[in-house]
């Protein structure tokens, strides 16, 4: 990233986490705004929240479908994929890209919502909400799944804190910490939502936290849909010519809550047209390496896959 212009990295950062790319671009853009003294207009901030929450939902549907598949249950995975596709349709309409949105730009977002878009968002939310009871029936109260996932890969709160666990994996140990609520960014301080927790800290608890967060994300998206029409204004503040943009010297550490956990960017500018240093503090590198290694020790071989999936790590972000 240090060899590319500030703006060129926008196309690169979503690749760090394929299932949940939105937090990557938002965090990077907010970091540049911090250093450059820019402020995204309010409408852009609401649009970013909409993008982040839709991305979180898509990622969670992917995650618990994946966890189900590791216990031999493929139907929840197919259902999760099919329902996630409806969210990808929304992304296609809003951002032009289904998986890699590249929707953010330092200073705001690149497109306003198309006509009738919010109605389509509402109908997808209604549909996904109506599917939750099917998911519960098929997966979360299914005794095959419950017996397989409960008590597997258990970590307690102290271990979670020592090992640097964040996000749903930390909340599954009973600690209600969420960057959106405890260190609000964008307009999350104007939005009502709960931080669901579980106490058990096992694979089942982790997946259940994601299931509950899906409900909270639907709640947040509905609030955005309600508020967005009354928020006027531009969606981007002016930025200098991106090809000759020498960002002032400075450094910043910005963090957001991704679907995997706490995601942060440490960005240093030395006043040039390219970053001097960009470091991505991602949740998956922690979860998929030291946490998985600790949890897998002494567990049954057939459970390793589901421990891995219940931690919901993102391989491209682990490889660094």
């Amino acid at each position: 990233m240090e060899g590319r212009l500030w703006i060129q990295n926008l196309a690169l950062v979503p690749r760090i986490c394929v299932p949940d790319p939105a937090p990557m671009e938002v965090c990077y853009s907010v970091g540049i705004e911090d250093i450059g003294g820019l402020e995204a207009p309010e409408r852009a901030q609401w649009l970013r929240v909409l993008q982040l929450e839709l991305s979180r939902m898509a990622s969670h549907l992917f995650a618990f479908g994946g966890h189900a598949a590791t216990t031999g249950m493929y139907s929840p995975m197919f259902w999760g994929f099919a329902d996630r596709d409806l969210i990808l349709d929304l992304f296609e309409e809003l951002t032009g890209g289904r998986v890699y949105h590249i929707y953010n730009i330092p200073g705001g977002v690149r497109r306003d919502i198309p006509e009738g878009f919010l109605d389509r968002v509402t109908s997808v939310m209604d549909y996904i909400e109506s599917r939750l009871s099917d998911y519960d029936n098929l997966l979360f109260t299914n005794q095959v799944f419950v017996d397989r996932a409960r008590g597997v890969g258990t970590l307690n709160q102290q271990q979670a804190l020592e090992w640097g666990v964040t996000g749903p994996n930390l909340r599954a140990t009973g600690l209600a910490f969420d960057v959106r609520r405890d260190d609000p960014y964008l307009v999350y301080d104007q939005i009502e939502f709960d931080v669901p927790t579980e106490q058990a800290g096992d694979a089942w608890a982790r997946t259940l936290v994601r299931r509950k967060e899906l409900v909270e994300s639907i709640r947040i998206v509905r609030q955005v849909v309600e508020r967005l029409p009354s928020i006027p204004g531009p969606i981007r503040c002016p930025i200098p010519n991106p090809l000759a943009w020498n960002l002032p010297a400075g450094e910043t550490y910005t963090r957001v809550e991704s679907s995997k956990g706490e995601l942060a960017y440490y960005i240093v500018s030395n006043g040039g047209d390219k970053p001097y240093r960009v470091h991505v503090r991602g949740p998956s590198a922690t979860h998929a390496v030291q946490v998985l290694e600790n949890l897998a020790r002494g567990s049954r071989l057939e459970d390793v896959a589901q421990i891995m999936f219940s931690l919901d790590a993102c391989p491209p972000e682990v490889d660094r």
Partner: protein
Amino acid sequence: MSDIDHKARGSLLNPIKNWQFFGRKPVTESLDPRPASLNYRGFHLNDWEKCIGCSTCQKVCDNAAITMVRIPGLPDDPVKGVRNERPAIDYGRCCWCALCVDLCPTGSISLSREYVHTCTEEEIGSYFVLPDPNGIHGEYYGLGWSKSEDADLVDLERQSMAESAPEARIGTFDEIVGGFDPQQAIVEPRAASSAACATIPVRPT
């Protein structure tokens, strides 16, 4: 605590209840091609009448997917900033970020709603495309991501010249050379030749 009871056991009648799925709309859909959305970032289109061959798209391309190809016969007037080159896209490298569209000074380049291209190994060169107004297969699929007021990143204001430190400035003309862009050099050839002398250090007065 969870509102989903892990001890709850399903009813024996559940298999019968599942028959309801026969009455529901299937969640899977056929693989027939469907039209992409209006903002879709598909294969490139380029309006050759508008394009001036400035290579801004090539400069912003983060994957080095764009090569400027010289097309004999097209207008070529460096003084007016018009070159007889047109961008060619290597789809083995392109990531469809559309930064080339947002930075195009003339708005000639845009993305279409076309998204399917397959070929045999012998035709692998077909991934290297010189976009025209009709798209990769000559069948216009409609305009996708194009330049809009919101996404226009072109800034035609002249950038201020970087200032060197006094001790560097006193010894050479580096500051002037650095601030003298290549386009200006073509317009003012005499100034360019003077600037070329600037690498020779001068004695501080």
